[in-house]
């Protein structure tokens, strides 16, 4: 039994039903093997982090799940159906926000619905609700260049929420915002996971961030790219956001992950 399968079997028993399954996915960029025969389950209603050093293929995997790039082999299933491209069951939050600079916050948030042909008044009502949810009420008419980095990512998040997809894919969403904003985001993300009945797949390179927000952490290692370990923190999730960072289990997991990753950092 390979290492991947072993880790996979361990993880599967306590995990609830999967919303997304990655089965034997491979992807090559020319001679470079980005992903090799990767399999991974993403439990419904939970947040799974893809954590690993740069070059381990975590963003590639996320984009394959999003349907933005095709896999060379293997399949991705969302709710048991194999995907064939982007779908309305998934929404993406981009590292660089990917906001339309010529459109105001309201149009940016409503853009996903606009592309689906939802009528203007209807989509703007939905967008306004999510703009308020992410704490940007009053900024509907502002343009992206008038907002701070953190506020821009809130717009990106509101856009992904407004299409009401079951699966949210977040590609290092907090890496371009400052540390204080990032901590606030992490707390907001936890309440989002709790309140919205959605499955979150979260790519990050920050060990602390992954442990802080995740129900399940998949550690990806490069050369060849593989899932080395799946960690499911158990005890600190319900102790309140302010207590997580001094919980012994939190500290142990952070240390343990660093111990297994340090040899891969040049």
């Amino acid at each position, binding site marked *: 039994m390979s290492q991947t399968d072993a880790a996979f079997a361990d993880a599967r028993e306590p995990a609830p039903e999967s919303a997304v399954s990655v089965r034997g996915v491979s992807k090559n960029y020319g001679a470079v093997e980005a992903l090799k025969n990767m399999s991974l389950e993403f439990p419904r209603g939970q947040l799974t982090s893809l954590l690993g050093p740069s070059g381990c293929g975590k963003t590639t995997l996320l984009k394959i799940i999003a349907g933005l790039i095709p896999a060379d082999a293997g399949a991705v299933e969302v709710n048991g159906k194999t995907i064939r491209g982007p779908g309305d069951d998934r929404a993406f939050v981009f590292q660089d926000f*990917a906001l339309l600079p010529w459109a105001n916050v309201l149009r940016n948030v409503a853009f996903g619905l606009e592309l689906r042909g939802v009528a203007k008044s209807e989509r703007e009502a939905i967008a306004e609700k999510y703009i308020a949810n992410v704490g940007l009420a009053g900024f509907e008419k502002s343009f992206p260049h008038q907002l701070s980095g953190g506020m821009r990512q809130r717009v990106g998040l509101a856009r992904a929420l407004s299409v009401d997809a079951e699966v949210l894919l977040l590609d290092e969403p907090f890496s371009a915002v400052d540390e204080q904003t990032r901590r606030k985001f992490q707390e907001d993300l936890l309440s989002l996971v709790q309140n919205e009945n959605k499955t979150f797949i979260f790519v990050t390179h920050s060990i602390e961030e992954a442990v802080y927000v995740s129900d399940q952490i998949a550690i990806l290692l490069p050369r060849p790219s593989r899932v080395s370990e799946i960690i499911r923190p158990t005890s600190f999730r319900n102790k309140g956001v302010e207590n997580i960072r001094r919980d012994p289990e939190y500290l142990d997991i952070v240390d343990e992950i660093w111990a297994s990753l340090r040899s891969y950092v040049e």
Partner: protein
Amino acid sequence: MNRSLLLKLLSAALVFGAWEIAGRIPISYAFPTFLEAMSSLAQMAFDGTLLRAYAETLKPLVLGVAISAVLGIGFGLWIGLSARSEWVFSPIFIVMQAAPLAALIPLLVMAYGIGLTSKVFVVCIMAMPVIVLNTAGAVRNTPASLKEMGQSFLASDRQVLLKIVIPAASPVIFSGLRLGVSAGFIGAILAELKITPTGVGDIISYSRSIADYPSMYAAIFSIILLAVVFLNLLEKLENYLFEGNNRGYVSD
């Protein structure tokens, strides 16, 4: 807003003041003062000379600029979206841009005569390449993450083009249009000086031949003024179509 108007007036005052002084020294007997040029401009405006001249000049200018804008943006989009068409068309426009136009005018006249067609061609050769090349470059440099964003939110190819690629390229397309339109104005006057003297080109060459320099400079001034007005209108159109393009200055 008032401050920016004040600065614009100051800039105009500086230039016209320098012109007036240079004319009074005088730096050349063929160089009139600003006030002399303005008085003959007013005279030509009131006796209808200018109106008749522009009725003639605007024909090739408007036609040429309109053709250049429509075809130029169209070709630019095509070149920007497909590598194959870039290899076919892009060299043509690069050659067009680099060609010494004044030397080619006799060829155009032989092929198309001395009428409107040749003049429209001159305007197009001046205006189109920069519009095409700017548009193509802007389209090719659409941020990849914006296109990915569109795809991930289920945009069709047509929606990606209309709602993402073209608006994203619009600031550079418009700067190409501004450069192209200015070049078109130059082309229109060049055509009237080199092919047949009509319109504003006729005022320029006729008043030069009878040493009426104030009228000559008045005519040149009027065409520059028209170009400036037109470029400002173009900027207004851009801000109206793509509000977020007007991102302000760092110091504001």
